[in-house]
């Protein structure tokens, strides 16, 4: 019997081997997915009303009209979110931003954006998760804990699977290494290959590792045992196909990416190393790529009468902090939940349009709320996996809720 596999859009892994049992357009059982994936695909909490203006239920046309009116009247609206939206939705959002002279940003501006930009610009060597499954012998998790953030990554792609060139798997042919400030669940799996460093100690650790790779004595101000660092350097030197998965723990600890560039350079002189950012949302990578294709920037842009400006001042954090935006269209994100409270509170002073499949802190404080289909569960499209591979998906169930794509098109028309 031919099986019908679905794609889980619960995180940046976009697992494509999911089976579900559904009845009357309700997902009852989800097989293969992780704990988060199951919750995502069975996501149930809907808002009481599908469309709201000023917290009162309205019809779709009224909500769309009010959303368009907010954007039309704004001098500098912020369009934010889109990390869980399809490529097709993201492209419309970029057009909408152009049309409304908006500031456009996503979470990557305060997450892994600089790293993704460097990868898109071919400044760092990368590979696919399939390459890793088939070939990787040394896997480093640096400032990231996939056991909690990307739960199936170790079993499906990196450490545990039997790849075409790695049939003996983790027992004999793969080494997983964790470098982190705390003993995460992933660090526990890595056992003796867990290297615990103090907070903000990453840049020094990289320097010491580079010294170790160059045959010098590795030293740190926090007296990391040189013997252990040399042991790590030797493992990396011997790698035939290595990969570093970089998380926010590392990025937040570095002033800039230079130490990482230096490390990758020397690693590729001594052996063969690739880098993949641990992108969280299912299509943050798509947003970065789609915006880059259109503007040459991955995030934090401001459109103005046919021109595009870019810089941290156009990031969601700085534009809210400086109160330079006077309205916001938030698509599939909850800035009131994910941003520092002292910055997020400024959103309460401007009219917000929330387009989301569930009730969020932001939707509860929005002037307009439009409840949409869940991308990947109730609406089809495509997204870009954390390693840059495009994944297409069909809806798992049908719904009466409009897709984000349809909503944005309607707002565009109403403008």
């Amino acid at each position, binding site marked *: 019997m031919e099986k019908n596999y679905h794609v889980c859009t619960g995180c940046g892994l976009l697992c494509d081997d999911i089976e579900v049992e559904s009845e009357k357009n309700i997902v009852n059982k989800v097989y293969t997915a992780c704990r*988060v994936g199951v919750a995502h695909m069975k996501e149930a909490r809907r808002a009481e009303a599908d469309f709201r203006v000023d917290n009162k239920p309205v019809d779709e046309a009224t909500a769309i009209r009010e959303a368009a009116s907010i954007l039309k009247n704004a001098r500098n609206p912020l369009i934010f979110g889109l990390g869980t939206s399809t490529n097709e939705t993201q492209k419309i959002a970029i057009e909408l931003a152009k049309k409304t002279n908006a500031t456009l940003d996503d979470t990557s501006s305060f997450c892994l954006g600089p790293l993704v930009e460097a990868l898109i610009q071919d400044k760092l060597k990368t590979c696919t998760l399939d390459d890793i499954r088939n070939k990787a012998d040394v896997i480093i998790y640096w400032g990231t804990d996939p056991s909690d953030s990307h739960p199936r990554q170790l079993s499906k792609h990196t450490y545990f699977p039997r790849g075409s060139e790695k049939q003996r798997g983790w027992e004999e042919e793969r080494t997983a290494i964790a470098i982190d400030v705390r003993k995460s669940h992933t660090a526990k799996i890595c056992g003796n290959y867990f290297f615990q460093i103090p907070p903000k100690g990453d840049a020094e650790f990289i320097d010491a590792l580079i010294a170790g790779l160059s045959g010098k004595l590795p030293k740190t101000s926090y007296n990391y045992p040189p013997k252990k660092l040399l042991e790590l350097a030797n493992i990396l030197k011997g790698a035939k196909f290595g990969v570093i998965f970089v998380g926010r723990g590392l990025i937040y600890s570095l002033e800039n990416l230079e130490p990482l560039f230096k490390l990758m350079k020397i690693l590729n002189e001594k052996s063969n190393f690739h880098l993949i950012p641990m992108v969280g949302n299912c299509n943050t990578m798509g947003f970065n790529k789609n915006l880059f294709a259109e503007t040459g920037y991955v995030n934090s842009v401001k459109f103005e009468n046919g021109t595009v400006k870019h810089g941290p001042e156009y990031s969601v954090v700085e534009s809210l902090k400086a109160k330079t935006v006077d309205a916001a269209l938030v698509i599939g994100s909850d800035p009131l939940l994910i941003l520092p409270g002292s910055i997020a509170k400024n959103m309460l002073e401007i009219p917000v349009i929330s387009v989301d499949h569930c009730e969020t802190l932001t939707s509860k404080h929005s002037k307009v709320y439009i409840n949409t289909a869940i991308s990947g569960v109730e609406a089809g499209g495509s997204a870009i996996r954390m390693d840059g591979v495009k994944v297409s998906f069909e809806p798992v169930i049908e719904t009466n809720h409009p897709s984000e794509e349809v909503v944005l098109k309607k707002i565009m028309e109403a403008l």
Partner: protein
Amino acid sequence: MDFGSFLSAPEIQVKVITYRDIFQDKAMFEDRFGEEYRNLSAVIKLDPADLKQLNVKKGETVILKNSFGKVVVKAEESGYETPHRGIAYMPKSPWSNILVSDETGGTGVPKFKDISVTVTSAKGEKVTELMR
């Protein structure tokens, strides 16, 4: 001996490191306004010696305070084998975000994993409710 232990309500300074937790993420997907999400989010994990100095038992609430905000969360033991006095852990959530600095140096990147707070016993005060 720390001076703090002579005060009637001892207080300690800790650096908070935020992290992801799959159980908490799952609870958020299901209902971010629900009890399970709150129970798994509004938590600080401390070194047992820090808990002792605070005169707080695990499961009791503590006040976390700095110049950016104040929040009441439940105190737990971290469970890490290696002592880590002065360093505490919180799952990333609106509760930890209340304490994140708005000083970004114009970079657009808040210091989500570099939070300093004062911890004191909340003396039975309830966990801070999410803004609704």
